[in-house]
């Protein structure tokens, strides 16, 4: 099980700079808006910029040194890389390929079965019992959702 860790202080530093840039970009963009359209995003971004500045000062060490932080603390970004990638890529494939091209019923069943099976195989947990459970539950769940949205709420699904 491969995990991905990142230095917390480094992550905070990068993110604080990114947030300050984001605030700058949003403030620049608000110049194009009408007076009434600009008030809210302008004021909210000003507040956000202040909080981001405090975050920036803290993460770049001015206050942290006083608080005695070692700066070596690791942060677990991803606990199990293979399962994360399978689920993440699976969700993207479901949205962009399966759901839109194959439709809800086929796409959802394929998505559920493939993602659960691949995760179980990568973890060496695959068994006849688990595969049967995944197959049955995926089929039942998908048909239940289809019935609910299509026939109870009368919503057209792809």
């Amino acid at each position, binding site marked *: 099980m491969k995990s991905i860790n990142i230095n*917390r202080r480094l992550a905070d530093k990068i*993110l604080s700079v990114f*947030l300050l840039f984001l605030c700058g970009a949003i403030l620049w*963009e608000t110049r194009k*808006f*009408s*007076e*009434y*359209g*600009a*008030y*809210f*995003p302008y*004021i*909210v971004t000003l*507040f*956000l910029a202040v*909080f*981001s500045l405090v*975050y920036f000062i*803290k993460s770049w060490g001015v206050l942290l040194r006083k608080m005695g932080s070692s700066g070596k603390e690791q*942060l677990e*970004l*991803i*606990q*199990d890389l293979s*399962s*994360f990638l399978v*689920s*993440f890529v*699976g*969700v*993207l494939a*479901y*949205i962009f390929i399966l*759901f*839109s091209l194959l439709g*809800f019923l086929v796409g*959802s069943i394929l*998505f*559920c079965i493939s*993602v*659960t099976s691949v*995760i*179980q195989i990568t*973890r060496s*947990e695959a068994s006849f019992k688990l595969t049967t*459970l*995944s197959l049955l*539950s*995926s089929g039942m*769940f*998908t048909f239940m*959702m289809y019935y*609910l949205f299509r026939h109870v*709420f009368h*919503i*057209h*699904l*792809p």
Partner: protein
Amino acid sequence: MIAEVVSALMQPSMIAIIIGGVFIGNLVGCLPGLTATMALAVLLPITYYMPISTALVLMGSIYVGAIRGGGITAILLNVPGTPSDIATTFDGFPLAQKGLARRALMMSIFASIMGGIIGNIFLAFLAPPLARISLRLGPPEFFWLCILGITIMVSITGESLGKGLISGFIGLLITTVGVSPLGGETRFTFDLPQLAGGVPIIVGLIGLYCIPRVLELAQEKVQEAEGIIVKGSIHSEMVWVIRKWFSGFQGIISSLIGTFIGILPGAGGNIAGIMAYDQIKRMDKHPEEFGKGRIEGVLAAETANNAVVSSSLIPAFTFGIPGSPPAAIMLGAILVQGLRPGAKLFTEHAVDMYTLIGGFFLANIALFLVMYLSPIYSKILSVPREILAVFIAVMSVVGTFAIRGNFADVMVMCTLGTVMYFGRKLGFPTAPAVLGIVLGRLAEEGLTQSMMIAKARGGLLPYFFGRPITVILIILILFFLAWPFLQAQLQKVRGTK
């Protein structure tokens, strides 16, 4: 009106919805990592197509069931099923280890029922008069109330103040995408026509709460309830816990603590459970026995956390400041139905509101039925997490798509969720961002209308900062911003003494 409410609640379909909601909530709550908030967020699109009262009753029943369901894993696995059940683990798991798992489970059910009913009484009698106060609020007060809501949620929950505020204000900014409600121009759409309609509340809530859980659940493994055997008669244990609950004042005190914490915006069931547990422990003649398997510990925690369920809706429905993260989703549900918090909710939509309150009462009574579910708990707990992950993913995608039949919404939902996954890992809490999305439009209307009125009157400062209620709200915001520092100083002073 009473006849209309009773008639609505006595419909067989409504009773089925209440029982179904409690069962669904209970199942979701007992799965570690699936919270009441997430359950409500993922089911929000389904309620979108229902009449308001039915939608609210279903969500209320799920909320009641989920908070109680979290107690099951707290007792059997020593893992709180929802954050509200942290205090239940203190004595629930030791009781299970002593062979008293059934007794602890029955106490968690009955305490939840009693806490829920008492919290509900406060919702019924306190919310309407408080809502009338909201009539005195003008646009600047609504703006400051929204900011106060986010500040309190960040300040009280003990998360990082700075990161919580950044999260909340990003939530507010997300609501500015699309056509400006008063200016009329499109904002932050990157010239994509699909974004002109903005980010609907439901899309934001599902993205922020569900997609991070999908990615997290896929990485988790099932934790087995090793060595814990649930034995004993369901009925005799239930009779015993009923007598125990009424034998002292612990139940009433815990209910009142839970209700009070619920009314405090942003606090939630976890704080209520811990505070009630701590108070009952202090009052007991043998506080040293707490943590080693005292049934009073389960009583206190479960009574208080379920009292929060109804009472957390009091500030949400009256002033638009939710008392807990699930209450924020409930607030989102009434906003997407076109209603607004405040006095009109209890006048123009009084039947819907009192149907919800009656629904809460019946949902708490329906909790008696879940005691028969206990034989299947161990099977539910062993459901592989990756199967849950894909089910939540399917519900999130189809629910988001169903709102407007728009793939762009699904992409926005997925993007928000992925960003929130990494945000959570870096310590940015989800709840303030969700509250920002829920309150964004109200805050913008408040601010922009204030600016327009102030401009017409020729003075921004007196109108926006000088009105008596706005002064109080600004002082409260400053107080809650300073609260974490004050709390740290107080702890230091206590430590030196």
